[in-house]
């Protein structure tokens, strides 16, 4: 009961949050909150197996899938607040309020009586009880669900597959292209310098120094440069120590 009265408001607020946050990553995290709370509620409802499955499958696998796709689609994409369809927000608000009220009032009219409880059903253990039912009464549904899973996996593979339109470049052809580019445009033949190779730091955001001491822009990611988080490489030790002291470090 305590679990319920603590978690229920939390879940509702998190769910409302999914509606209103702008970044989809935040929405995913709020959904994770809801799912984990649900798992705890399952535990309170004498369903330990589901408690575990909820966390492993739902939160662990499904939500992570969401996050992966969000990464591919674009973490930065955020919804604008302006609604394009006229009257949609009003309709949604009215409809949602009406549905919610009707459901809650309808449900509140139910006289459920005392719950029978699952001591009997769980007397050999929850997992054993579930297994008994799944593999006797619902075995056909079980088999069909497995077929569904196989189909889903195959479908996802087919959908996400990108057909190669050009032949795969071999190492020889890659090398030949590089030499050609050097001959035509004077492009650098070798690999890019890693950051901080010739400096005293090898952090990703500290550029490498060229022989004359100037930082090499090609050694840091363009993204970081665009963001403006590239550090200045220090000239010598003293400057470095000055820098550190200014930043409140110790000698």
């Amino acid at each position, binding site marked *: 009961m305590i679990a319920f009265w603590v978690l229920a408001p939390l879940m509702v607020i998190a769910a409302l949050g999914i509606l209103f946050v702008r970044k989809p990553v935040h929405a995913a995290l709020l959904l994770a909150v809801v799912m984990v709370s649900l798992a705890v509620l399952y535990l309170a409802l004498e369903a330990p197996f589901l408690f575990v499955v909820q966390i492993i499958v739902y939160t662990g696998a499904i939500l992570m899938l969401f996050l992966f796709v969000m990464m591919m689609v674009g973490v930065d994409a955020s919804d604008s607040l302006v609604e394009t*369809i006229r009257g*949609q927000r009003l309709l*949604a608000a009215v*409809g949602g309020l009406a*549905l919610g009220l*009707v*459901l809650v009032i309808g449900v509140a*009219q139910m006289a459920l009586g005392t719950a029978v409880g699952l001591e009997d059903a769980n007397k050999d253990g929850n997992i054993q009880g579930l297994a008994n039912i799944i593999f006797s009464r619902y075995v056909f549904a079980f088999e069909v669900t497995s077929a569904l899973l196989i189909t889903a996996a195959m479908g996802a593979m087919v959908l996400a597959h990108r057909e190669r339109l050009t032949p795969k470049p071999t190492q020889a052809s890659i090398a030949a292209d590089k030499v050609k580019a050097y001959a035509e445009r004077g492009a650098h033949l070798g690999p890019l310098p890693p950051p901080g190779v010739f400096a005293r730091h090898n952090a990703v955001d500290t550029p490498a120094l060229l022989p004359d001491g100037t930082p090499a822009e090609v050694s840091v990611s363009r993204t970081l440069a665009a963001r403006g988080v590239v550090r200045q490489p220090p000239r010598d030790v003293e400057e470095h120590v000055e820098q550190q002291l200014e930043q409140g470090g110790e000698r």
Partner: protein
Amino acid sequence: MISLEESHIPVVDPASADGAFSLLWLIIALPLAGAAILLIGGALFPKPLKVWGHVLGTLLPIGSFVISLVLFLQLLGRDEEDRQVVQHLYDFIQVGDLTVGMDLLYDPLTSLFLLLITGVGSLIHVYSIGYMEHDERRPRFFGYLNLFVAAMLLLVMSENYLGLFIGWEGVGLASYLLIGFWQHKHSAAAAAKKAFVINRVGDMGLSTAIMLAFVTFGSTSFTVISAGAGHADHDVMTAFGLLLLLGACGKSAQVPLQAWLLDAMEGPTPVSALIHAATMVTAGVYLVVRSNFIFELTDTARTVVVIVATVTLLWGAVIGCAKDDIKKALAGSTMSQIGYMMLGAGLGVAGYAFAIFHLLTHGFFKANMFLGAGSVMHGMNDDVDMRHYGALRKAMPVTFLTFAMGYLAIIGFPGFSGFWSKDKIIEVALTENWVVGVCALLGAGVTGFYMTRLMLMTFFTSERWEKDVHPHESPKVMTVPLVVLAALSVLGGVLLAGDWIVDWLAPVVGHEAHHEPPIPALAVTGLAVLVVAAGVATAFLLVGKREVPREAPQDVSFATKAARADLYGDAFNDGVVVEPSKRLTAGLVTFDRSVVDGVFSGGATLVAGLGILLRRGQNGFVRSYAASILAGVLLVVLALLAVNLA
């Protein structure tokens, strides 16, 4: 068998036709065949018909006349009780309870009508050979004439009301075709339509009467109805009589359905003579006399008949006084004389025989005068305006003499046929009701006036001919019928000799003891002659002594203006019937266009508009569709809750 007790209503109880009477059907079949050959053949083989079509068309009615004469002589030879025969041709209708046979009845009344129709009809056919000589549609004309004769014969020979109605409609059709024979003339076409439409109003009465007969008696046969009439409800009989009267008014041009007769003069003159003088317009009188077993049972209906007849006889006479068109004057006269016949018929058993007698004599002298008018027109280049005639007695002597015979008959000059018939009707009228009698007397006086006026303007007074008009006598083919009819006009009174016609018709109409009129019969006759003489004298003074103007004067008394306008009969019809009908039609057309069509096209527009409106819901956005799904979910949940909580 029938009995002849005093005032007992005679029952139609015919024996089956045998011997010579088995030729009854042939009387109708001959002119019908003629009509078929002339009309259908006119399309198939026109050239031969132009040569002998008119001869065929004349010989066939003459054949019918011969047969009618033979049968009449046969009937004369029979005993009084055996004078009704019926010939059953075939079963016409057999539906549920209604059985109507095509039966032909031959009794004394029919015999007289057959002789009149076929006899006078044949004479007019002969006349038409000459009159229509220059018309290239002459074969067609004879076809229509034969059709008319066949229909009229069916009318008078039918043993039941339905057969009578077929003949009734047939003569209406023939009348329409013949009035509008000169189709190219707009006035003729309009007149034909007017006649047909007004007749239709009367036909409504007759058809309703037939339906009433079926409902009341289960049959339309005269035999059945006359046997059962005594047991029927009095009000039903009154209704029956009034409906029959309505039919008769339409066909016989009685007030209020009289407006068509004067316009019908647009047709060729033989048509006016045959149809609108001698035969078709008398069909109404025939109907009333034949239905005497109905009328004898209702005083109300008979009274209405008398009133209608009296009004009409004065109406027609007044109109005839102011007409300058010779044919229209004669038409007004016809209307008036039929009024006399209706009067006789409405006066009951005492008057039926005299009504028929006057019908026969009128057939003779009116046909005579119409054919004479046609002869005059023939000589005057088809001009009908009497103001352009004058002093024609020297130019057309035969026409003049025969016309004069008809004239003397119609005014009731002592000794001529019309004298005997009209006098008897006035006598019976006076016996019944002195007001009606006085009106009949008055009518006789006015008749004397306008007929004398007509004679003076046409044959006497000074020449007022148009230029290039050279009046000449008509050819023999036209003058011979005139002579025959003139002879009949003179000698027709013989039918009354020894009350022959009264006894002859007694098996059909009953027999009534002779009631003395309020003043002695001889005094009535003298009074009638005096009144007529007064009318003739007035005409001499007003018309004969003065110069007849060539143009009709405009500043005349109100009475003359009213008479020229047919006593505003047309104006009344226009205002009461035509204008409201036009408005109703216009209203219905508007209603049809705006409401009825509007419902459909409006419905279509509505659906289209609804479609355009609903189409906006398909905006392609998934979220809008999700919103409607949410609304659906809401409805389903509400429904479930309602079911569960209710």
